[in-house]
C-alpha cells in the first residue's frame, strides 16, 4: 500500500515536472540550434569577448536594435538555439557605423561602452585571389574610401596604389564588406585570431 502511494507520488511529481518544463521545451523546439556562419554573424560592437558570457548577460530585450541608426543589428530567430533573440550584425546586408548607441542603451552591459580603438568585432580579411586590384582586373579602393578608421585600419600597398591591405587597427565594423562591389565578396570579417594582418604587411 505504501509503495503504491509512493509510486503515485512519483508519477505525479514527474508529470508536474514535465508540465513545468513543457513551455521551455516548446520554445526550444521552435528555435533549434544550427551553426551560424561566423563572418555573417558578428556581435555588435562592445560585446563581451567571451560569447558564452555575452549570451548569459543578454536578456533579449532588443534595445540595441531599436536604437541602431542604420538598423544593422538583427536578432537570432528560429535558427538561434541557445542564442535565440540575441543580436548580431550581418555586414553583407548592413554594416555597423560605430555610433556607440547600442552600447549606451544596453541595460545589462552585455554591450559594454568601449572606446573606438578597443572595439573588437573581428578583423577584415582580403582574399587576394578574388579582389579585383589584387588579380589585376581593375582599380577599386571602395573598402579604403568607406573605412571610418582610415589609415589605422586599411590602406594601399606601397607599390600598387589600388591593392588594399588590412592593418592591425581594424575593428571589424564590416562597412568594407557592405560596399565591396565584387559579388563573391573577397573581403570578409573574421575572428581576430584568424586574421592574417602580418601577411598583408609584407
Amino acid at each position: 500500500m505504501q509503495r503504491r502511494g509512493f509510486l503515485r507520488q512519483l508519477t505525479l511529481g514527474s508529470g508536474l515536472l514535465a508540465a513545468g518544463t513543457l513551455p521551455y521545451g516548446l520554445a526550444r523546439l521552435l528555435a533549434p540550434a544550427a551553426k551560424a556562419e561566423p563572418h555573417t554573424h558578428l556581435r555588435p560592437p562592445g560585446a563581451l569577448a567571451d560569447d558564452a558570457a555575452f549570451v548569459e548577460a543578454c536578456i533579449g530585450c532588443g534595445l540595441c536594435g531599436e536604437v541602431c541608426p542604420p538598423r544593422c543589428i538583427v536578432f537570432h530567430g528560429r535558427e538561434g538555439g541557445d542564442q535565440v533573440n540575441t543580436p548580431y550584425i550581418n555586414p553583407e546586408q548592413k554594416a555597423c557605423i560605430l555610433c556607440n548607441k547600442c552600447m549606451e542603451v544596453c541595460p545589462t552591459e552585455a554591450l559594454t561602452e568601449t572606446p573606438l580603438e578597443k572595439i573588437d568585432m573581428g578583423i577584415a580579411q582580403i582574399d587576394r585571389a578574388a579582389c579585383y586590384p589584387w588579380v589585376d582586373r581593375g582599380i577599386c579602393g571602395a573598402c579604403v574610401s568607406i573605412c571610418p578608421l582610415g589609415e589605422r585600419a586599411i590602406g594601399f600597398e606601397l607599390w600598387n596604389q589600388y591593392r588594399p591591405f588590412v592593418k592591425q587597427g581594424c575593428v571589424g565594423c564590416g562597412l568594407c564588406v557592405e560596399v565591396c562591389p565584387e559579388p563573391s565578396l573577397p573581403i570578409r570579417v573574421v575572428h581576430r585570431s584568424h586574421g592574417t594582418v602580418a601577411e598583408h604587411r609584407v
Partner: protein
Amino acid sequence: MNTRALKPFFLWRHLNKLRWVTLSVVFAMLVLLPFVHVYQTYVAAHAYDLLSPEEQRLYDVMEGLTSPFTNDPAEDLDAIKGTTWSGTFFGLQLSDPLAALAQTAAARSLYWPFLLTALIPVVFTIVFGRFFCGWICPATFVYELNTNLAYWLRRAGLRTGQKRFNRKLKYLVLGIGLVLSVVTGSVMVAAIYPPAVIGREIYYVIALGGFGAGTVFYVMTLLFDLLVARRGFCRYLCPGGALYSLLGRYRPFRIRRIVENCNDCAKCNAICEFGLDPLRDNFGQECNNCSACIAICPTDALTFTISPKDQPYQGPGHLGRKYHRLQHQDRQVREEAA
C-alpha cells in the same frame, strides 16, 4: 445602520475602463515605436529621395506625428525606446523584475546597475500586487480579447476550453526556468514570457521585416487559452505572473468584499480572468487588482481597501437568499428555545 460607510468609492467601478485605456496605450506604443525607429533610420540616412513611395509615405506620416515634439528626430526620439521587458523612458531605465532575476541566474552574478532598473517595478508590485498582469502587460491585451472571442464563440454554440489546473504550477515553471538559466547560461524565461515575446516580435515584424522564433509560441498560447483553459497560460504557466504573485503576496492595496451589500450572484467569480474566488473573500496572492469584479458587481459589494491580508470568509452575502434562510433558521431555533 450606517449605510454611507458601506458604499464603495464611486470611481472604483470605472477603474476597469481606465485599465483598458492603459492596456491599449501600451500596446499601441509597442506598435508605434518600431515605426518611429524606421523613421529615425530614414532621417539618419539623409536620403528621402532614394526611398520608395511607401517608405516616403511612412516618412511623411511619422514626420507629421513627431515634428510637434522634436527638432532632431534621429536623436530626440531615442527618449522612449524598448518594450515592457526592458526599456528607457526619458533617461529612466526600467526593466522587468523577471528579467533581473533570470539574468542574475543565467550570469550567476549580481550586476547592480541592471538590478536597480527593476527597483521601481518591484516596489510597485509589492504595493499593488500583480498589477502588471492586468494593467500593463501587452500580452494581456490580446489574451483578454481572446477571452471575449471565447465568450462569443460559446454564445454561438461552440465549445471552448474551461478546464482548470492547479495554479501553483506556474511557480514550478518559474523555478524550472531559473534552474535551466543557471544550467544553460542563457536567459531561458525570455523565450516563453509572453510580454517579452510579443514586444520583440512586433518589433521584428515591423522594423526588421520577419517573424522571430516567438510568434509560433505566442499563437500556441492563444490556442491553449481558447481550446483548453480560459486564460490558461497566465493562470497556470506564466513565470512572470508567478514572480509578481510572490512579490505581491502582502500587498497593502487590495480588493475587499462588503458582505452587507453582496447578494451571492457570483458574477465576480465568472468575470475573474485569473479564476479567483471573490465571492468567498478568497482573493489570494494572485489577484492583479484589475477591478473587473468591481465593475461588474451589481450591488456595489466590492471595493478597494488598505490591508496586508484578505479577510477570512464572512459568510453568505446579506442580500442573498442563503443568508436569509440561515437567519430564518436562527430565529426559529431561538423561538423554540424561548
